[in-house]
């Protein structure tokens, strides 16, 4: 049971990173990335291929993030000029093309049969539990870095530009913000985080194949962000925790409960219903959009307070 809990924590950490990255793109900047899994896949396969030729794990992880970011940049050039719905469909199709490519080209990484990946940190002769703890340390270290980056981006002038682009990109452009440049940057940062998470995923599971990167992964991450609260980094993490928790719960229910409906089906039916209910009654998610905290804004608020309290005015 403890091992199960630790395994759960690793998954929450990995998908927390992906949820944070989608939150940057969708929550703050309003980009409908329906191909998140593509960048996750790029990261995972980069890690797998590099680790096979003996590159140390930290370099593998960094390269996974960099290559995913490069993919994000290349995709962003044509795709980000598109409307939200066109962007969603084209990035979804891109992810599927990439998966077909990996599946059909046996030379890249085992093709349809998958590829085994060596773990990041392998200590000789330790128990599975210690191994899990090491993984938790690694994953949560990466999560912490991503969270700090996301928070800094959100609570900065950059974050205000992101929100401005989300709310009205033409107005943002009119105020001199190059929306194409900002969108490309956000897409690259988001893709880098997804790539990093992909690398962690590959080394943790120690085996990847193309069937592990179905569009379902993308939609699971969307559920996390919608449920937790778009444009709130804590919300993204909360969503990641909740969705993983329901996922595990359904797997446990399969073994311990007798239900008229197979829990693995019921789980997704409930997920779907939950998302629709959230969109109906609480579209801002469980945690509302966090107010921007920047020095300039605090000064403005504080200043206004001083002015209003001035006696005799």
């Amino acid at each position, binding site marked *: 049971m403890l091992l199960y809990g630790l395994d759960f924590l690793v998954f929450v950490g990995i998908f927390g990173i992906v949820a944070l990255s989608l939150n940057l793109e969708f929550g703050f900047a309003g980009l409908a990335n329906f191909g998140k899994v593509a960048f996750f896949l790029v990261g995972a396969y980069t890690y797998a291929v590099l680790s096979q030729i003996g590159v140390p794990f930290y370099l593998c992880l960094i390269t996974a993030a960099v290559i995913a970011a490069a993919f994000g940049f290349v995709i962003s050039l044509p795709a980000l000029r598109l409307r939200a719905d*066109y962007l969603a*469909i084209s990035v979804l*199709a*891109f992810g599927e093309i990439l998966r077909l490519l990996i599946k*059909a080209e046996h030379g890249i990484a085992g093709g349809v049969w998958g590829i085994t990946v060596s773990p990041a940190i392998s200590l000789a002769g330790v128990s599975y539990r210690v191994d899990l703890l090491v993984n938790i340390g690694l994953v949560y270290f990466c999560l912490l870095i991503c969270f700090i980056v996301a928070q800094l981006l959100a609570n900065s002038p950059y974050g205000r530009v992101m929100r401005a682009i989300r709310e009205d990109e033409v107005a943002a452009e009119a105020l001199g913000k190059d929306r194409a440049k900002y969108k490309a940057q956000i897409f690259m940062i988001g893709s880098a985080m997804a790539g990093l998470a992909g690398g962690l995923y590959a080394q943790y599971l120690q085996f990847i194949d193309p069937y592990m990167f179905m569009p379902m992964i993308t939609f699971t991450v969307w559920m996390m962000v919608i449920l937790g609260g778009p444009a709130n980094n804590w919300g993204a993490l909360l969503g990641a925790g909740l969705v993983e928790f329901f996922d595990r719960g359904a797997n446990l229910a399969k073994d311990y409960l007798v239900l008229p409906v197979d829990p693995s*089906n*019921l789980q997704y039916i409930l997920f779907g219903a939950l*998302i629709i209910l959230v969109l109906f009654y609480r579209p801002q998610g469980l945690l509302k959009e966090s107010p921007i905290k920047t020095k300039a804004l605090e000064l403005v608020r504080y200043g206004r307070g001083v002015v209003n309290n001035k006696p005799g005015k």
Partner: protein
Amino acid sequence: MTVNWAQILFNSVITGSIYLLGAVGLSVTYGLSGFPNFAHAEFITLGAFIGYFVAEQLGLGLPAALIVAFLVTGIVGFLCYRGVFQPLAKRGASIIHLMVASIALGFILRYSIGAAWSWHPLYFTTTWSAFDVGPLRVTGLWLWLIFVAVGLAFIMHLILTRTKIGKAIRATSSNPELALASGINIDRVIWITWFVGGGLAAIAGIFRGADTQIWPMTGWDIILPMFAVAILGGIGNFYGAIAAAFVIGLAENVGVVALIAVGLSTEYRMAIPFLILIITLIVKPQWLAMLFRRA
């Protein structure tokens, strides 16, 4: 390698007919309601399963299966719009929220289907006699498919051009505000397109299922080619979607020959519509629509 081009053309018509039936509803509802309905994939799947239920489990044959699947899935399509998308849009949901809602609704339908039937692939047991016409190998199922697809396309053409409701649909799709001001009940027009779109998707699902297999992912497997058809033909453009369905059917079947010729895996067949989709979106959406722009 000798290539039987007549057969390839014929196969393109088969593929195109399924895409035509599957994509027309997607395209028209996309145009009228203003968002891509990803749950359209599940309309296709649902149709396949209802068709299987009627034709195989009840043993009533293909024509009955087509009619029942059309009606039931049409009603489901209408209910999806009336019950979820329309109220969401009235609450001011953004296009991204509507897309996410359609995926969520797709989950509900897909896994309900999985729970009601099963995740093991099902096959139609009816065997269709195959016979040769000149250089062509033809099966009865394919003749049925072409007959139904062409027949329904023709009926819809007649409805769109000759009837009052058809005129209302065309008016709404070209200018909703003006249609509303002219006293057209826009809501009713949109409901009808969701009903017919769902019904046509169901028929596509039956033929796709009979040609390959039936499982809860039957629709999702071909949703991206459907989007390729809708976008290449111009969103909301009925005639454009018909042309685009056959263009993509041809591209896929010729593409397979090309893939074999250059020594690539035929698994890339599915990548062909995806590539067409991406290129169309990036280069110029709706170029084919311009060919079919009607006064």
